[in-house]
């Protein structure tokens, strides 16, 4: 089994018009998806990231330049990540395609394999 990282990109503004009932339904779909993977032991650590976008750090001369990451108003923000276990990339892709994150317009998933050779 290899390990894959699903970086969940989103456009927070896309959620603006969503009704409470729709929000409830979307959350349930995420929960069901995670539960389904958990039952098959395919789900690894998964975390929400804060909306402040964090910091971008670069060495500049003797010091370090820190710039703010994208804020919640940004067009594209990594909201959090899931890690999953899958035998190969095709299977990982298949699992990622069932993630309800893709149901909201504007959202996309960056699928990366965690290098197993380490």
């Amino acid at each position, binding site marked *: 089994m290899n390990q894959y990282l699903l970086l969940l990109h989103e456009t*927070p503004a896309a*959620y603006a*018009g969503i009704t*409470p*009932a729709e929000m409830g339904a979307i959350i*349930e*779909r995420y929960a069901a998806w995670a539960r389904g993977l958990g039952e098959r032991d395919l789900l690894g650590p998964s975390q*929400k990231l804060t909306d402040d976008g964090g910091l971008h750090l670069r060495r500049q001369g003797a010091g370090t330049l820190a710039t703010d990451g994208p804020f919640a108003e940004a067009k594209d923000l990594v909201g959090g990540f899931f890690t999953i276990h899958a035998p190969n990339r095709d299977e990982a892709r298949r699992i990622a395609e069932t993630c309800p994150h893709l149901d909201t317009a504007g959202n996309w998933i960056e699928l990366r394999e965690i290098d197993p050779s380490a």
Partner: protein
Amino acid sequence: MSEDAHQLAVLFREQHGRLLALLLRESGLARLAAAEDALQQAMLAALRRWPFDGVPQRPAAWLFEVARRALVDEYRGGARRETGHDLHALADPHTLDAAPVERFARELDDDELALLFAVCHPDLPPASQVALALRTLGGFGLRELAAGLLTTEAALAQRLKRARDALATRGAALEVPAPEALPARRDAVLTALYLMFNEGYQSAAGSDYARRELCFEAIRLARALATHPVAGAPQAHALAATLCLHAARLSGRTDADGQPLLLPQQPRDRWDQGLVAMGLHHLDRARAGAALTRWHCEAAIAAAHATAPRYADTDWASIVEWYARLVALDPSPVPRLAQAIAIGEAQGAAQGLAAVEEVLPLLPRERYPFGHTARADFLARLGRIDAAREAYTLAIAQTRSPAERRVLERKLAALECGDAVRE
């Protein structure tokens, strides 16, 4: 899994009013808009956090805490005003999440009930009462609400804003009205819920989903009001009965292709017997009252339709009697038109035609198509084909509903085939 998805959707919608009412208990009704925003923010936070953390043990308590913090933050950020409300007085979140989330199952608590009375205040225009009740207690989004109420999001937002401002200006208190004021205020709420239901039931445009949800929200609130120990009353049961019995027929109103079916053609085995039973139960409770209200009459008429095994079994004589009682209480043209149609069914097309023609000139403009349709139906039954054609054509020209127009065009076509729609 889909059952679960439904559950959390229902929870978010049904807890919306309850959470909002709790927030307002702390902040006061004047901050309704801010409280709505805070709750929206909390739900959005849940949407973006729970996928990773899982759904908390007590989701409503979580939402309340986050919304309350957002409301306090907003208050601190905004201009400070003296309000006599302590924003930090903590509502007891332990009372949250105790309730089941099944549709229609939950009683309103006193905060929600106070909110219902506040938003259905007779000082607000009826259309605003309906919109604000759906928005605050029903947790409807602007988009779906605009679809259900046949308006634009911008117009709706404007209407809601004016209504909130009016409540704030009036300094309206968030409380269940005192006993002496209760009957009149309750009547206003019942009327608003009836309007809410009709928006969903009669508007033929808009998505089926949006319309059905309006109907179900009206039923939920009517049932909750009816069963409330203090604010409940027989006429509230009568309204709940009326709405349940009408809603029972929602599932039989269209054929397999989604085309509307008229009452005589509706497959009665597709009516929702659960809702019929619920309606009859409320009708039974409504009989406890000494006073006969318009809602009692409406409920009795709806029950006569819902309990007839076949259209031919309809007890028109009893329906005519109930319409007579209804018209005695409310002599306006709309119930009189319905009475005229029932007279035609009970006593023959000639009597029906005479009664319709009497009320036709009195109808409000948006009801013209119904009047002309009823007149055309009776004319067709009497074999007066040319006059019937003319009346159907008038109705088609005046109706704003595409579904209604299709029904009328079918009737007109049947007329041309010499196949008058006799029941």
